[in-house]
């Protein structure tokens, strides 16, 4: 039993945190958000130099062959800095899915580009009516000779703004929520028939809604076996949730630190507001919530690649519930204790609150995962 970081992880954490301190202060982040892409390609290049973009990728494709635990170290640092670069979409979901199920040709072609920082990916799975239900896919893939024609809509595709290629799920068989019959295809952003509506999210990350109108994909674009994509997507999404849990822990930690600092420095009635017992106890509860969340984020990372999907998803759902609840308590309490300043654009606190709130809405909120955990019990 050992809860300390490995030597590699410690170095990774230090490197990432230092990079964030140097390049991702609150003002720098504002500039990045205001830039043409809404994120920094220069920083992405630095990620590539440092090997961060290759972290989850096999050595044979130019990566570092890191574990989910390694990715979680990056996630936590990114959470502390409120990083908006599409790391989770490209690396965890995109490259992760390809690593899980891509053909040799697909991996050989694409993963080195991702590791080098030259390619952005996005998983286009959720749909306007699917909410958090992974097996709910209405987009159709109709065979046309050796090709397929994809038609449908994809909703809130994270990183969809930057993506060069999409991993698009579509039905080759079955209807609506049938777990079987879902296939996964690589679709380049400039594919004829593909319309991308990109937009910022309220936390500064970016996404896109896609429309596919008879988008033609060759057989070589299919990822994995026909009709068998759901377990792959489910695994990739569980890994993404584990990543988000670690990211949320970083955000909670930073928000707690900000709040504690505010309690010590803000004076009212001639004393620091941190001298009021009610605020002290609430701050304690925020710290307890953080420790509980950290424990479950560790569990999620540990189980994210568990060979038993049932064990994996049970642990990941439990973690997502805890993260949702801790994030809500910490976010709401932090804003309340800051007062008005806590909800202004000019102060970092509110941005952590927003990020934590939206993490709870990503790949299933606390209620959704509580139900999933309870059903798996």
């Amino acid at each position, binding site marked *: 039993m050992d809860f300390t970081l490995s030597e590699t992880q410690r170095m990774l954490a230090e490197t990432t945190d230092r990079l964030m301190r140097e390049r991702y202060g609150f003002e720098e982040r504002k500039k990045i958000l205001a830039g043409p892409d809404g994120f920094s390609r220069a920083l992405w290049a630095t990620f590539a130099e440092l090997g961060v973009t290759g972290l989850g990728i096999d050595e044979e494709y130019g990566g570092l062959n890191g574990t989910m635990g390694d990715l979680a170290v990056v996630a936590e640092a990114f959470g502390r800095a409120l990083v908006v670069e599409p790391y989770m979409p490209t690396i965890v979901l995109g490259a992760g899915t390809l690593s899980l199920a891509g053909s040799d040709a697909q991996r050989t072609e694409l993963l080195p580009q991702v590791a080098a920082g030259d390619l952005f990916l996005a998983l286009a799975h959720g749909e306007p009516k699917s*909410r958090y239900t992974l097996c709910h896919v209405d987009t159709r893939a109709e065979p046309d000779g050796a090709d397929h024609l994809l038609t449908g809509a994809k*909703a809130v595709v994270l990183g969809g703004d930057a993506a060069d290629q999409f991993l698009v799920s579509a039905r080759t068989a079955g209807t609506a929520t049938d777990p079987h019959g879902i296939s996964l295809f690589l679709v380049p952003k400039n594919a004829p028939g593909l319309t991308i*509506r990109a*937009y910022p999210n*309220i936390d500064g990350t970016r996404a896109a*809604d896609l429309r596919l109108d008879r988008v033609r994909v060759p057989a070589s674009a299919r990822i994995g076996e026909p009709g068998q994509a759901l377990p792959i997507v489910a695994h990739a999404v569980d890994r993404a949730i584990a990543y988000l849990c670690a990211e949320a822990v970083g955000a909670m930690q930073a928000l707690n630190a900000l709040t504690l600092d505010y309690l010590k420095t803000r004076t009212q009635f001639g004393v620091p507001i941190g001298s009021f017992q*009610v605020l002290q106890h609430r701050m304690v509860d925020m710290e307890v919530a953080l420790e509980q969340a950290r424990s479950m984020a560790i569990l999620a990372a540990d189980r994210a690649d568990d060979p038993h999907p049932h064990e994996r998803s049970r642990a990941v759902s439990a973690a997502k519930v805890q993260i949702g609840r801790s994030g809500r308590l910490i976010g709401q309490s932090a804003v309340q204790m800051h007062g*008005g300043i806590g909800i202004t654009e000019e102060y970092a606190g509110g941005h952590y609150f927003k990020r934590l*709130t939206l993490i709870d809405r990503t790949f299933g909120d606390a209620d959704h995962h509580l139900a999933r955990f309870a059903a798996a019990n």
Partner: protein
Amino acid sequence: MDLKYSEEERAFAEEVRAFVRAELDPAVRDRVLNHKRLSKEDYLSWHRKLAQRGWVAPNWPKEHGGCGWNAVYRFIHEEVMAEEGAPPIVAFGISMIGPVLIAFGNDAQKRHYLPRILSGEDWWCQGFSEPGSGSDLASLRTKAVLDGDHWVVNGQKTWTTLAQHANLIFCLVRTDPTVKKQEGISMLLIDMATPGITVRPIITIDGEHEVNEVFFDDVRVPKENIVGEPGKGWTYAKFLLSHERSGIARVGQSKRELKRLKAIAAAEEVDGVPLIETKAFREKLAALEIELMALELTNLRMIAAEKSGQAPGAEANMLKIKGSEVQQGLTELMMEAVGPYALPFNPEALEPGWNGEPIGPDYAAPLAGTYFNYRKVSIYGGSNEIQRNILSKSLLGL
């Protein structure tokens, strides 16, 4: 014990309802119901209609052009308007400075300002909070020094709601730094066009511009623009803050929002079933509805007590606490209801007249923003912690 309104009160409620339905611009109503942005003119056009009907100042005595209504009538008027989607009456003139001027202003001030508040000609804003003084309002530092016939004002106010629309500001300023902090404060009436005043927007995390900072740099204010006596500003401020709190629980607005939540939850689907029919969501919604039912009755009990002559006391603080919790609960459930479509940030969709294609369902655009924005309701007007401090002292004697 009779939980129902009297015949007369019911008739009045229906009269108000009919008036709103007949007179309110449907486009404005739509903006209110769907949390889109309201322009200054949206507020003012409705203000003028109410003024015409004689209903714009429910809490003012008749001799000053008010309605002279009792607590129940005031409550009905406010709640029905809220339920029906009317913009709120802008409080700064009608509910804040108006009553102060009626109680403490001189004749000239009453003659000049009151009619202009009623007509909507003047838009006031409130200069109380400062960066250093949140809950500890009396610690304010903006100072006014008498220089001949003028007060010279220097300092900074913050959280000044809708200052961008205002041509006047009522300000608490320190006129005597040598006495106890509560005793050195005066209240000044200041023209926003006076040289030396700068208004800087504060953007909130939903991207909206609702509040401002107001800077005073050697602003010269005519000596006679003081309310009542120098050094009594704290008394007037307390009068202002405790006055007219019947609507503090925002029951009418929350009933309207509950309807909206139900409509959204009926439109959203989980695996083909309307969200509102799923047990977990339905029961969360029900729990909130029960809280609102209890709040409404608690409010009515307090209004009835006020009508029968008991002054509103500690109860207002309770209503503020519970009312804010219910409002926040509603915004949170609405955000939850749209699931992943809470993420996109599409502020253009809140602009009047925007005709673009929505991202996701057309009701989605304001939901997360409103949730973030509504964290303010447990902060402003005395945070819920301050409300509990007050109750602990006044109600419990602790």
